[in-house]
């Protein structure tokens, strides 16, 4: 079946899958958002244990989604992987350090004789949830705003600035992207707590926190959307890459389905916030979750279609990357496409397990009775 597809079709299919993985990852960053709220929503040690236990049952999925996102990029678009990771070295390394310290923190935080003390592991969780997410947002932002790299005839690349990716922090678009993700993660965390935990004080404070974070999130999101729609982007044709004004606005107009995803997704997130704040609903996470996936999917897909660069080069425009010059071969993408049939199966068992684990809301009593709680 996939053998008969053109290389371009396979490249587009894989860009869609990578975008979907990225979107699912952003959804599940409610885990990271929650980690930054441990001392905001919980006021006692018992309450904090409940929050950590609730997040602790999902943290591995956020970790796995990130690894999967990286793995899929490596397999499908190896040149992007090589140029971005090898070039923006300090940014990616900083992100990795933020995730290394997350991985042990849930398990070690409450264990006796844990060497660093409970508070250190909580700081680790905070760093992962704040700096880690902001940096990921900034790194993704460079896919729109560009990076300082060149590549030669053999497709071997080099970064032209010694700051090795840290210069991304000077670009307002990247910064706004990072903070939008950060506040989205916190909004979703509050929605998740409302859905997952049965505890009056936590519910009350989650709604209060949701109100505060929603204001920041909406502000940053509106700002980001305006910047995205008015910014220039890198296009390409047979003669090479060139800069096009209002590139992403024209991509939305050229792909109305993406525009619909973006608008519907945005409305769903806003609806989730509304029903949680004003209708006292605990189902907001499902609307915001689907909404987040739709919005992030549409934003990522803006890069992969309509002759757009997925990684513009600010040092040499003709070194820019698109899905065509950075992808795997037809054979590899075909093989990987068959493997992608596993995606619905994997999503299926995740949903089943999630359902069976979250049949009833977590309570403080349940956590205290659990010998292995985080």
């Amino acid at each position, binding site marked *: 079946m996939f053998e008969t597809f053109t290389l371009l079709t396979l490249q587009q299919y894989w860009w869609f899958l990578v975008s979907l993985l990225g979107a699912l990852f952003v959804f599940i960053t409610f885990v990271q958002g929650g980690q930054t709220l441990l001392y905001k929503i919980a006021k006692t040690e018992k309450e904090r244990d409940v929050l950590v236990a609730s997040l602790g049952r999902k943290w591995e999925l956020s970790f796995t989604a990130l690894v999967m996102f990286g793995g899929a990029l490596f397999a499908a678009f190896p040149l992007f992987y090589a140029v971005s990771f090898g070039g923006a070295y300090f940014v990616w390394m900083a992100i990795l350090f933020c995730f290394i310290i997350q991985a042990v923190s849930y398990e070690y935080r409450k264990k006796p004789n844990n060497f660093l003390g409970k508070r250190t592991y909580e700081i680790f969780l905070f760093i992962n949830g704040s700096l880690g997410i902001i940096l990921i947002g900034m790194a993704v932002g460079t896919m729109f705003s560009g990076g300082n790299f060149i590549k030669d005839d053999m497709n071997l690349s080099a970064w032209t600035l010694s700051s090795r990716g840290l210069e991304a922090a000077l670009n307002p678009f990247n910064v706004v992207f990072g903070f939008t993700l950060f506040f989205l993660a916190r909004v979703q965390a509050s929605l998740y707590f409302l859905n997952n935990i049965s505890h009056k004080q936590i519910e009350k404070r989650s709604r209060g926190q949701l109100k505060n974070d929603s204001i920041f999130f909406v502000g940053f999101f509106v700002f980001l959307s305006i910047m995205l729609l008015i910014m220039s982007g890198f296009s390409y044709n047979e003669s090479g890459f060139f800069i096009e004004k209002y590139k992403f606005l024209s991509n939305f107009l050229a792909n109305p389905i993406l525009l619909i995803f973006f608008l519907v997704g945005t409305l769903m997130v806003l609806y989730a916030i509304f029903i949680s704040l004003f209708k006292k609903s605990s189902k907001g996470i499902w609307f915001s979750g689907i909404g987040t996936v739709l919005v992030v999917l549409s934003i990522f897909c803006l890069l992969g279609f309509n002759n757009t660069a997925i990684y513009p080069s600010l040092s040499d425009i003709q070194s820019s990357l698109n899905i065509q010059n950075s992808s795997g071969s037809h054979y590899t993408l075909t093989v990987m496409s068959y*493997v992608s049939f596993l995606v619905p199966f994997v999503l299926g068992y*995740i949903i089943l397990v999630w359902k069976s684990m979250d049949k009833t809301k977590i309570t403080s009593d349940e956590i205290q009775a659990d010998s292995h709680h985080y």
Partner: protein
Amino acid sequence: MDNSLLVDLSRGQFALTALYHWLFVPLTLGLSFIVAMFETIYVKTNDSEWKKITKFWMGLFAINFAIGIATGIIMEFEFGTNWSNYSWIVGDIFGAPLAIEGLMAFFMESTFFAIMFFGWDKVSKKVHLLSTWLVAIGSNLSALWILVANGWMQHPVGMKFNVDTARFEMENFFDVVFNPMAVSKFLHTVSSGYVMGSLFVVGISAWFLLKRRDVLFAKRSIIVAASFGLLTSIFLITTGDESAHEVAMKQPVKLAAMEGLYEGHKRAGIVAIGQLNTDKEIGDTTKDEFLWKLEIPYALSFLGYRDINAFVPGLNELVNGDPQNSVESANEKIRKGKIALNALRSYKNAKKSDTQDVAKSALEEFRMYEKYLGYGYLDKPKQIVPPIGLTFYSFHIMVGLGSWFAGLFLLLLYFSMVGKIEGKTLLLRAALFSIPLGYIAGEAGWIVAEVGRQPWAIQDMLPVGVATSQLDTTAVIITMSLFAIIFTTLLIAEIKIMLTQIKIGYKEA
């Protein structure tokens, strides 16, 4: 430009992170199955003591698993950050197993981990047991795909060099997956994990018996783990033999380094134990290879080539050539490799200037010599030789310890079966002190596999010098230092937590 410092630092950072990661992976591989066995017995017998035993070992598994994940994430991304040329040149083949690993294994592990640890009262006994087994299977599936990738680096198959994209591209996925080197590496590596898991359980259980604490728990744990350990250590030895045979066939320089073999000969023996003569150099036939040695005659020819009379080339022949035994010199390979590289450059230039005839003849010349491509990047024949001392001693430490573990499990199982294990203080102490030996053996195995194939990132195709990212050495020094500090800190935390949990014991835990 001489980038040898950058290459050494990049290799050093990868080695550091890989060695740390491998402190935790074997225990995950082995202990996950042992825990699943304990739980199976609990479900079958409905004896709550087995549930307590399961939960105790499961707790230790979780402590180890967490730090295994922490050290593991860096491995995948380091291919991009520090080996970006590698990621492009072979990413079309190498990326696929990593992506499949994520999809097939990581999601399975991380999803069912939640039920395994938090689902005791939320799902039925059987669903819980299934989840525990799925975590074990997921962990081992993860090992499968990463070892498929590693096996391909040791013996690249199923691919072709695309001159237009200047990279290797996959031609046959099944050749990559069923690469004999990958199969033997997978079986040998996971079985080393099973042995490590068994050593961990018998060692800690031995400590309980020495302390006269929780005797029933300790005896039951020993019976299960020693049985598993004995079976898997026999399997480990078998797969080790197959692995060495693959090395003999596909990586003769590594085999010569593993055996400290400078001068090749027929009916070659294996050095069981010996001390290398550090004054010995390649090409120098006046000095002995060893200061002293104990050799098993004919064994290297037989185990390496399945023929007692087989000629085993030594480092002298592999570097300087031996036409009589059809061994091509490294110098000749380098010459041909440089022809391939020049032909590739000519092809690219001809394509750019649109001179089709030149491009065609350059391509024909390239195809003639492409199997020597990697050698074209080398300058001196001796560059094909890995560090001999490190490879030799690591290999012999690994083999010696592997043999000891099989004997240990046999003795533990025997005395457990006859009910005399409690009185065997010396044996129990040996079991306890064998835990660190398991880690040493595992790390030594990886040193043989990876140091032994230097200078290659991809055997014969891509030397490490070409595979690195073009980074400032300061950047790598900074990140390597941070890794060393963070991983060491986390390792100390892990050991302290683990020891405390063990001391608390299974009833309280």
